[in-house]
């Protein structure tokens, strides 16, 4: 704050991913921001780099039984079960709402078969206002024994290839961290035509109530998010950036500007903020302001000058 000269400038915050121009590198992580509307009373949606919707499926999805969430050390487990209104209702009601904002809308989607993935992508293809698709491949492939698409590089390659054929929108593939070597799935997604990769989705986890001896989640296993997973996420982003040419969006436990900077420095072009939105609905605005302040203090004229500058 006391470095006078550098303080004057307004650093450039805009970044570009797969042809989409973002005002800044900050966007919400799918599933932590509803369909945008829920947070509009607390946060100016136009201040964000992008809006990422809750994951959509072909048909509306009920989700899991409760309890669906539980707090853990510096994190939380969730097993919501991808409850959503379905792609058609989204287009009709939720998209109509989001169109009043200038912020690019990235629509997250999933399926339980290759064809379902393809069909959802196709239905979103000619929807104006959808800037890009984010494909969640952390779902079970019901036609192949329920193996998660994202943990089987061949299934991931096939599903992404099919979606690629059915959409002309920029395609972001969201990777699961629950694999032995993430570079393999990252390359599979890139080879299949992904324009960008986002990672990480939640780490699978479990918690037990020792008095009742029951799992704390009705679904038994859930996805771990929050500050607890950040070092793992930074490591995985670092590894993926080495392995692919397409841009990478970093996700995992970001709640402050300093956290976002770690991801940018290892090479993420943008980042998603998840659990932190629950803790503070204003978190993303605070992070954006924090990034600007960091650039000013460090004399960085353009945030892009920080991306991928890890000193080894």
């Amino acid at each position, binding site marked *: 704050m006391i470095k006078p000269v550098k303080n004057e400038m307004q650093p450039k915050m805009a970044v570009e991913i797969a042809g989409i121009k973002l005002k800044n590198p900050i966007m919400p992580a799918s599933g*932590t921001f509803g369909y945008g509307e829920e947070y509009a009373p607390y946060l100016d949606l136009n201040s964000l780099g992008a809006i990422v919707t809750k994951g959509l499926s072909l048909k509306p999805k009920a989700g899991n039984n409760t309890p669906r*969430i539980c707090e853990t050390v510096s994190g*939380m487990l969730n097993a919501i079960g991808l*409850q959503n209104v379905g792609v058609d209702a989204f287009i009709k009601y939720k998209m109509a709402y989001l169109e009043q904002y200038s912020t690019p809308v990235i629509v997250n989607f999933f399926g339980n078969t290759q064809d379902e993935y393809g069909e959802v992508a196709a239905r979103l293809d000619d929807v104006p206002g959808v800037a890009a698709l984010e494909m969640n491949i952390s779902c079970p492939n019901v036609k192949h024994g329920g193996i998660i698409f994202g943990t089987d590089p061949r299934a991931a390659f096939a599903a992404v290839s099919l979606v690629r054929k059915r959409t002309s929108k920029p395609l972001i593939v969201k990777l699961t961290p629950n694999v032995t070597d993430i570079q393999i799935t990252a390359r599979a997604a890139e080879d299949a035509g992904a324009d960008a990769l986002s990672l990480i989705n939640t780490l699978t986890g479990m918690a037990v109530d020792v008095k009742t001896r029951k799992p704390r989640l009705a679904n038994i296993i859930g996805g771990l998010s929050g500050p607890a997973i950040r070092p793992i996420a930074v490591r995985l982003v670092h590894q993926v950036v080495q392995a692919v040419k397409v841009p990478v969006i970093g996700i995992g436990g970001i709640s402050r500007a300093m956290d976002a900077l770690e991801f940018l420095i290892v090479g993420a072009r943008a980042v998603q903020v998840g659990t932190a939105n629950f803790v503070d609905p204003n978190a993303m605005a605070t992070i954006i302001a924090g990034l600007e302040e960091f650039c000013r203090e460090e004399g960085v004229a353009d945030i892009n000058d920080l991306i991928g500058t890890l000193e080894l």
Partner: protein
Amino acid sequence: MKNLKTIVLSNQEISPGYFRMKILAPGYNNTAKPGQFVMFRVQRSLPPLLRRPFGIFRAGFMPADCDSMQPKEFIELIYKVVGSGTEIMQRLHQGDPVELLGPLGEGFDLGVAEEEKILVGGGIGLVPLYMLAERMVETSRVRLLMGGRTRDDIIMVTEFERLGVETYVSTEDGSLGEGGMITQVLKRKLDKFPKSTVFACGPMPMIDAVQKICFERGTPLQVSLEALMACGVGACLGCVVKGAGHTEVEPRYLCTCTSGPVFNAENLDWNKIEVTVVGSGGCK
């Protein structure tokens, strides 16, 4: 609605394990409705990570004094220490910074003026009934049935009585008031005043029993439910309950934070309610 960065005005133990916290809350006095809640951020650092939901006990203002020319608006919470978050809360002092998101959710519908009202509160479930009683006594006769495991769980009796509410106390161990369950008192009151509307808040087994009694008699019932919440604003979908007519094929999940916490009993699916709500309730 916004996130309010504010301070604690006072924080006192009112019964073993129960605390009453007054928080500076500009804007709440005119907007907070009975049954609404806040998402409370205990401290800026971790733990806990998530905010905790608390019903608003009371909203009001302190008259202007020499320090400030404006009257100071405040809210009060009453909480029971049950875990990591409330353990930190009990150690907060006057002037400590806290954050409030709210007022959130759908509160109670005050119903028809003049008609008789019966409020049923178990333990910490008494909290949201205070503001409700405060509004209702202006136009209706209000009876309050207070229940708890033991005498320590019966809180705020004098406060309710000062409002002009008729109070009836029962404890499971008989240490205060009538011995036994609150529901037997409810049955007697409904026999005597069958035209009453019932408003209930408390642990899930109590709510469930109250629902059965009211359903059998066709008594209108509003319930305030608890659920584990992460966001409080309808985004995480962690807090859902099954609504009336819920099936696997046509799911009807309602968010406790936005469609509730107060529900008309007829809008909920009572067959499956126990698995969907935090079973232990706030009254442990």
